[in-house]
């Protein structure tokens, strides 16, 4: 009898637990339809504009005019803030870089997220929640969040096209610039001081709040390290200045027994196969405006043809790993670490695991950094040159989710202002003295290995938390800034070369041999409709066909695949961009 009762009780408990388990998996209720703009309330022709009524964004409801929810006085920056009467939830996206990150693994709950809550959230009755966004698949993550009516309070990205797409899809609401000036005067002033406040509008309304990007006319944090000892071995006294020299070097390396010195991986998503170093300078403005971005690979252009022809040469001459299209980025890093490839590129920081591992396995190796020449060099044979892609003059772009309430928008602006404060930014960027960094004179130097610490910073010194304000740390001069991001704890010091690379790029930019991408004050339906298919589905396939065909077949195949690519939507993208360019809705090349 006792046994039977026990069995019944067990069955009851098990069933209850299982059912509850299923039910909890169902998640929370989506946002109510009250918050969903409807056809009826959407102004004609304004598909992407949030409806009015209850969901009217903050612009029609000034910060200080709330109904007891907003701080009583938000008119004078932080000094004027008081806590919200009722708790406000503020959701901030943060990149989850998985294996490619070099910071703490839990990006939404760690010492620093708690630090933000303690020092900002708790003070103003704001519950700051971080929402992890897969760094390698940003658009998918935001799409899924939007589908679940669960977008974070703000959406953040470095790529202008992505923000434009979100605006076009209706994910965003415009904001009131006056409110930003009032609630976040420091953040706003940063925009003005850096001359980036001119980029806030899409389709005539303010959608974007822009972080700054120190030294945005260069790409100085992206560094290529190469095997100096290999150059010495084959008697070459400098890093190849042209593509022709590059091929000669690879031939010598192969002859010396280095198999596949160029390495090679499959093409991966946005930013792949950038053709800045294969364009003709000074650039033709229409070509630059219509095909000059890096979000959609520019198959059908002359620059892309040169780039792919070179890849074809690398493949056919045996310099590139013939199985490259089955290999991912992790394998490329492993190849370099294992001493199998000639070079590796990545963002430099004071803690660089790839280089540390490289020296562990190759203690006698000697590396050098590729330094941009300040003189423009054009390769007669290949049409390539030493140009590069300057980053945007602004850093991350922040926009407010379409369904964020006025209180949430205000809380987000408060967060932006708070993070802009010098002391806060310094602590987020450098961490705690004696724990995350130490002073060398008056210059802070990060502790190289923070693994295992409770206070371990996120990827690249917490950049994914403070990117809302600035794209990189600055100590006031490029020399100090580069010293701070020069890899530490290695047998070699690359400071001088990284600095020289910055100056070289800066000179090229000033001579108009490097141009930032064209930015449009509107979004394009064709990019939304075809961008992903072109980039993810067609280009990788066509690119590999062109890389692996015989050199004799290349030209005809390039023409054929270009036409297919244009027909699949790229022509429509070009046409829409051209229309916007002709209508004066774009930036221009410097004269």
């Amino acid at each position: 009898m006792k046994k039977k009762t026990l069995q019944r009780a067990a069955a009851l408990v098990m069933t209850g637990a299982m059912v509850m388990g299923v039910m909890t998996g169902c998640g929370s209720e989506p946002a109510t339809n009250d918050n969903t703009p409807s056809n009826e309330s959407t102004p004609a022709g304004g598909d992407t504009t949030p409806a009015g009524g209850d969901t009217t964004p903050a612009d029609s409801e000034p910060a200080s005019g709330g109904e007891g929810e907003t701080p009583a006085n938000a008119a004078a920056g932080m000094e004027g803030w008081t806590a919200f009467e009722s708790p406000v939830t503020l959701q901030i996206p943060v990149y989850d870089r998985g294996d490619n990150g070099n910071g703490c693994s839990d990006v939404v709950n760690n010492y620093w997220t708690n630090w933000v809550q303690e020092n900002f959230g708790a003070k103003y009755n704001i519950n700051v929640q971080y929402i992890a966004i897969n760094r390698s698949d940003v658009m998918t993550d935001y799409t899924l969040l939007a589908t679940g009516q669960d977008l974070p309070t703000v959406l953040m990205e470095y790529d202008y096209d992505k923000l434009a797409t979100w605006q076009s899809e209706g994910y965003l609401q415009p904001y009131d610039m006056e409110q930003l000036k009032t609630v976040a005067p420091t953040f706003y002033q940063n925009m003005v001081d850096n001359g980036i406040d001119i980029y806030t509008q899409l389709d005539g309304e303010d959608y974007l709040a822009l972080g700054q990007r120190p030294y945005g006319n260069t790409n100085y944090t992206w560094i290529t390290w190469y095997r100096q000892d290999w150059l010495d071995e084959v008697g070459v006294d400098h890093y190849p200045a042209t593509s022709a020299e590059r091929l000669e070097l690879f031939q010598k390396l192969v002859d010396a027994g280095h198999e596949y010195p160029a390495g090679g991986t499959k093409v991966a998503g946005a930013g792949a196969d950038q053709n800045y170093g294969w364009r003709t300078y000074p650039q033709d403005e229409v070509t630059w405006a219509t095909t000059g971005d890096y979000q959609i690979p520019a198959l059908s252009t002359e620059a892309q043809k040169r780039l792919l022809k070179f890849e074809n040469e690398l493949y056919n001459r045996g310099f590139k790993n013939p199985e490259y299209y089955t290999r991912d980025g992790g394998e490329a890093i492993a190849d370099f670490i294992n001493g199998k490839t000639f070079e590796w590129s990545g963002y430099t920081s004071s803690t660089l695991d790839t280089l540390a591992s490289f020296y562990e396995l190759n203690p006698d190796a000697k590396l050098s950094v590729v330094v941009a020449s300040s003189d423009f060099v054009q390769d007669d044979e290949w049409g390539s040159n030493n140009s590069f892609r300057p980053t945007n003059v602004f850093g991350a772009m922040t926009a407010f989710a379409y369904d964020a309430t006025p209180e949430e928008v205000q809380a987000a602006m408060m967060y932006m202002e708070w993070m802009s404060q010098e002391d806060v930014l310094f602590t987020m960027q450098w961490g705690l003295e004696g724990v995350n960094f130490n002073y060398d004179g008056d210059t802070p130097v990060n502790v190289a290995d923070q693994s295992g610490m409770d206070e371990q910073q996120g990827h690249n010194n917490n950049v994914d938390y403070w990117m809302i304000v600035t794209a990189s740390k600055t100590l006031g001069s490029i020399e100090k800034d580069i010293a701070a991001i020069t890899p530490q704890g290695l047998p070699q010091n690359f400071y001088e070369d990284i600095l020289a690379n910055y100056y070289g790029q800066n000179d090229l930019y000033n001579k108009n041999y490097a141009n930032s991408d064209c930015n449009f004050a509107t979004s394009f339906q064709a990019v939304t409709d075809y961008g992903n298919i072109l980039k993810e589905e067609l280009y990788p396939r066509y690119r590999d066909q062109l890389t692996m065909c015989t050199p004799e077949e290349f030209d005809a195949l390039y023409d054929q695949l270009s036409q297919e690519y244009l027909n699949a939507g790229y022509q429509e993208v070009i046409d829409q961009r051209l229309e916007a360019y002709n209508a004066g809705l774009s930036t221009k090349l410097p004269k």
Partner: protein
Amino acid sequence: MGKAKSGNKEVIAKTSWKKAFKRDWQLYLLLLFPLVMVFVFSYAAYPGMRMAFMDYKPIRGYAGSEWVGFKIFKDIFTDKEFTRALRNSIVFNLLDLLIGFPMPIILALILNELRYAKFKKVSQTILYLPHFLSWAIIGSVAYNMFRPSTGLVNMVLMKIGVIQQGIPFMTEKWHWAVTYLLIGVWQSMGWGTILYLAAITGISGELYEAAMIDGANRWKRMWYITLPGIKGTVVTLLIMNLGKIMGSNLERLTALGNTQVADFQYQLAIYIYNRGIGNAKFSPATAANLFQSLVGLALVLLSDRIAKKLGEDGLL
């Protein structure tokens, strides 16, 4: 209601649902869990099928999105990428069925004949294991095994002089097709034996004893007793598998694919993922999925009917 046969007279014992529930309430309670699962993950999602008939915008929701009738279906049926994905899905699923379906049956028959119990158990466990590996792991292992020049298999074959050049198991579409199908069989056949082995245990031992006395050898016992004994199970599983002819496994395709085999790798799961999630076009993705499901359902119903006409129990 319970049915029992006593001699030639059928006795029907009526039980009210209240009595049945009172007697077996623990069982009903346990049944609740799968029922809730089915309801939540299958039926509760049905209203989402509306998207196939709307120009669905996530931000506007169902209420704000425009109804467009069958326009989305017309669009996808005229999309050559959809046609390609459909063709590949059907061909590869038919091949999967052709190669993959008999394997668990054969394996179950072999396992059933093993007499050394310990060996049998170890074999079964080893055969079940691939089912528990994720496709990401299987894909990674497959590439390391079968790459043309750096894959283990090719390296060994080249080393011992069997081949001069690596076989492009994963990088040439026809070779890939074979590799893809065989890896699929390897991954699923062990797990697939479970139902057949269970069915085999239901066959009366007396039949085997009688056959042995009559001089039937092991092969004949298998052919005349075991196989007919599991025929019902085979037919049921065949019908269920026919319903999957239009389906495809995104994880398997992604893990084993690359650009060189895109011609074959591009199947409905990839089309639906790219259009739906990748490009935020939920309407065409839902329409493609709905079409896929309806054809699958039709195939199940049709094969069930055919099975019944042939004198089998069928599925429904």
